[in-house]
C-alpha cells in the first residue's frame, strides 16, 4: 500500500550506514583524499566492500545482499552526507548492475567483492572515476565492450571535487570483449541517475544541518543571525528544496526498482531538479556561514564542490529537462534514450 516512509529495514540500514560513515568517512579521511594523489580512500572502499555494500542491490543468487534501489538510495544518501570519497558510486550503482544486465556475472563478481574496479564510459573525454578503474565498459556502434585497462590510454583529470575525479580515455574500437547490446544497460543508467540524486540529497541535508547549527549560535548586531528574517526565509527555501529533492530521488529510485511506467521520466525529473537545487543549497550554506564558510578547513565547500560535480554527471539540467519534455510528448520507446539532441556525457 502507498507508503513513502522508509520501512524498518531501511531505517536500520540508514542508521548502520550513518554509524559506520561517521567513524570511517570522517572529516580527516575526506580531506586526506581530497588533497591526495587520486581522491580515493582505498581503506574506506575495502571496508564498504567487506560490509557487502557494493553488492547491496545485487540478487542473493549472484552474490549480493538482495536489496533494491530504494535501499541503495538510502545508503548513497548517507555517503553523500559524509562526503565519502572514491569510486563506490560508479562501481556499485553503474558498473556492477551493467555487467549483470549484460550477463557478465564473473566480471561483476570480481567488482562486487571489492577486488576490481570498472568504469562506465559515456563520454571518453570525461570518464568519472576512470583514473581508478582496472577496466572499462565502452559503447561502440550500439554494442557494449569490456576493455582491460592495459588496452586503454588513461589520462587522469583533477576536478573541482578532489574526492570525485575523472579521466579521459582512448581505446581501439576493436579492443576487449563484446558483451551485448547497449539497450540492455539503458535502465541501469536511469537507476544510477536516481541514486546519484540520493547522494546529492545527502550533501544538501548535511549543508542544511551545518548551517542551521551555525545560525543559531553566531551573533551579529547582538542577535543570533538565525533570528533575522532574511536568513530564516533562506533556510526555509533550503529546507523546501532539500525535501523536494529527497522526494524526487526516492520516488525515482522506487519507480526504477519497480519498473513503473514513469521510471525513465522520474529519473530525468529527479536529476533535472536536484542538479539545480543541490548547488544552490550547498552554496547558500557557504553564504550563510559567512567568512568561515569560505575557508578550506570548513567542510561547507566540500559539499558545494561535490554538488557542482554531480550536477554535470549523467546528464545536466538542460539534458534532463529536454528528456522529460520528450518523454511526456513523444512515443515513449523512441524518447527513452534521448535528450532531444543533447548528450548525457
Amino acid at each position: 500500500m502507498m507508503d513513502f516512509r522508509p520501512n524498518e529495514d531501511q531505517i536500520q540500514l540508514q542508521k548502520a550506514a550513518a554509524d559506520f560513515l561517521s567513524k570511517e568517512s570522517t572529516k580527516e579521511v575526506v580531506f586526506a583524499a581530497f588533497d591526495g594523489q587520486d581522491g580515493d580512500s582505498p581503506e574506506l572502499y575495502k571496508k564498504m566492500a567487506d560490509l557487502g555494500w557494493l553488492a547491496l542491490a545485487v540478487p542473493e543468487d549472484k552474490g549480493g545482499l538482495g536489496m533494491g534501489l530504494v535501499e541503495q538510495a538510502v545508503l548513497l544518501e548517507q555517503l553523500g552526507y559524509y562526503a565519502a570519497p572514491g569510486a563506490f558510486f560508479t562501481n556499485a550503482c553503474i558498473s556492477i548492475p551493467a555487467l549483470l544486465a549484460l550477463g557478465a556475472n564473473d566480471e561483476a563478481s570480481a567488482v562486487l567483492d571489492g577486488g576490481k574496479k570498472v568504469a562506465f564510459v559515456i563520454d571518453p573525454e570525461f570518464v568519472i572515476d576512470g583514473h581508478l578503474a582496472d577496466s572499462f565498459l565502452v559503447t561502440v556502434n550500439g554494442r557494449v565492450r569490456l576493455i582491460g585497462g592495459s588496452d586503454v590510454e588513461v589520462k587522469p583529470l583533477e576536478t573541482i571535487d578532489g574526492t570525485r575525479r575523472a579521466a579521459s580515455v582512448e581505446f581501439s574500437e576493436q579492443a576487449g570483449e563484446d558483451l551485448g547490446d547497449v539497450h540492455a544497460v539503458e535502465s541501469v543508467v536511469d537507476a544510477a541517475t536516481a541514486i546519484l540524486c540520493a547522494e546529492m540529497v545527502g550533501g544538501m541535508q548535511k549543508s542544511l544541518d551545518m548551517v542551521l547549527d551555525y545560525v543559531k549560535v553566531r551573533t551579529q548586531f547582538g542577535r543570533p543571525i538565525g533570528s533575522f528574517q532574511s536568513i530564516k526565509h533562506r533556510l526555509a527555501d533550503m529546507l523546501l528544496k532539500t525535501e523536494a529533492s529527497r522526494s524526487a530521488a526516492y520516488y525515482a529510485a522506487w519507480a526504477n526498482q519497480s519498473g513503473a511506467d514513469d521510471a525513465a521520466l522520474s529519473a530525468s525529473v529527479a536529476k533535472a531538479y536536484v542538479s539545480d537545487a543541490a548547488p544552490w543549497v550547498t552554496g547558500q550554506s557557504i553564504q550563510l556561514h559567512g567568512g568561515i564558510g569560505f575557508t578550506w578547513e570548513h567542510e561547507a565547500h566540500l559539499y558545494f564542490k561535490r554538488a557542482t560535480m554531480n550536477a554535470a554527471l549523467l546528464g545536466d539540467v538542460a539534458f534532463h529537462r529536454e528528456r522529460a519534455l520528450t518523454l511526456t510528448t513523444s512515443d515513449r520507446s523512441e524518447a527513452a534514450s534521448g535528450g532531444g539532441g543533447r548528450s548525457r556525457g
Partner: protein
Amino acid sequence: MDLSWTEEDKAFRAEVRKYLEANAPKDLPEDETANFEARRQWQKKLAEDGWVAIHWPEEFGGRGASLLQTVIYNEEYTRARAPLLVNSLGVGLLGPTLMAHGNDEQKQRYLKKVLSAEEIWCQGFSEPNAGSDLAAIQTRAELDGDEYVLNGQKIWTSYGKYADWMFALVRTDPSAPKHQGISYLLVDMHSPGVEARPLKEITGDSLFAEVFFSDVRVPKANLVGEQNDGWRIAMTTLGFERGAGGLAQSVRLRNSVLDLIGDAQQVRRNGWTAFDDPLSRNKIGKWLVEIEVYRYTTLRAISALVHGGSPGPEASINKIFWSEWHKSFTEDAMDILGPLGRVTTDESGNIDSQRWVREYLFARAGTIYAGTSEIQRNIIAERVLGLPKEPRGDTKTEKAGER
C-alpha cells in the same frame, strides 16, 4: 517504502474514472450565472449518486471513504477536468467542522443541503485589516438576549454573491487575547443588514465579494462549539483542506503545462513554432519537472497523513511550492507565447490567449491568499527549523504567522 497502489485502490480509481467519464458535463455555458447554475445542477447530480463528499460518513451522505480514496477521487476529478464544485467550501470546510464540533441539530439542519448545493456556503474569515494576520479579526458579535448582533466587514469571500450561508469567525470577547475571543458563527446571508458587494479582481472577474454586516441578528443556536473557542475550531478544518487536495492540485497544474504545450505548437514565432524554440522547450521542460516533483512531494505528505501523521507546518512547504510554481510558470507562458499570448480578443487566433492572460493574472493571488509566501516561510523557519521568533508588536506570547 512502497508507492504501489493496492488492487482495491486501483479498482476504486477505475470506478471513479468511469463515473466521471460517463457523467461529468463538458462545455459549460460561458455566462457566469448560467455557468453557476449548471455547476449547481452538476453537484446535485453528484450528490444523488453519492459522489460529492466521499470522505464524509455515510450517515451524512458520504461514503466514509479513507483519506487515500479521497485523494484518488480528487485526483481523478481533476484529471477529468470536471467542473469545480459550487459548494466546495461547504463540503471541504463547513461539513468537517460541523461533524467535529457541531451539535446534532446543526448537523441535521445543514449537512444534507451542503451536499446537494441547495444551500450555498461561503467562508467569512478574511478581513480588510487582518490579511495574513488572520486572527486580527475585528467583526464584532455582541450577545443581545438569544441573538448575536453582528457589525463589521469580511473580504475575499468566494461565492459571496451566491451564498445562502456564511460560516464566520467573529470577535465575541474584545478584551481577551487575540486568539481567545473569537467565535464560529453560522450566518444567514439573507438576514437583514447583510450586504454582499462583488469585488472586481485584476483579472476583471468577480470571484470574490466584500460582505458588510450592519446590526445583523444571528440566533445563538447558530454558534458552533463554545463561545470564544472559534479559533481552535476553525484551525482543525484548515488542516484537512490542505491534506487531501495536493495531488489534485498537481494534476491541475500539470494540465496547464499540457495546455501550454498544445498552444505553443499553434503559435509561430522566430521562424518556428514556440514549442520548437529551444529556449521555450527548456522552460516547458522545467515546469514539467517541477510539477512532477510537486506530485512526489504531495504523495509523500499524503503517505505521512495516511499513516497517522499530521499535516502540520509542512503544509506551508506545499503552499509555497504550488503558488510560486504557478506564478513563475504563467510568467514563462507569457514569454513563450509572446505578443499573441497578451491578446484577449476571443477570435484572435487558434489559441485561447484570454485564458493565459487570466491565468497569469490570477496566479498573482496564490502567493497572497491563505497566508502569503512570506508568512509561510516564517512558519517553516520557526516551527520546522526551530529558528528564533520574529519580534512582534502586538503580543509576545503568540507564534509569528499563526493562523
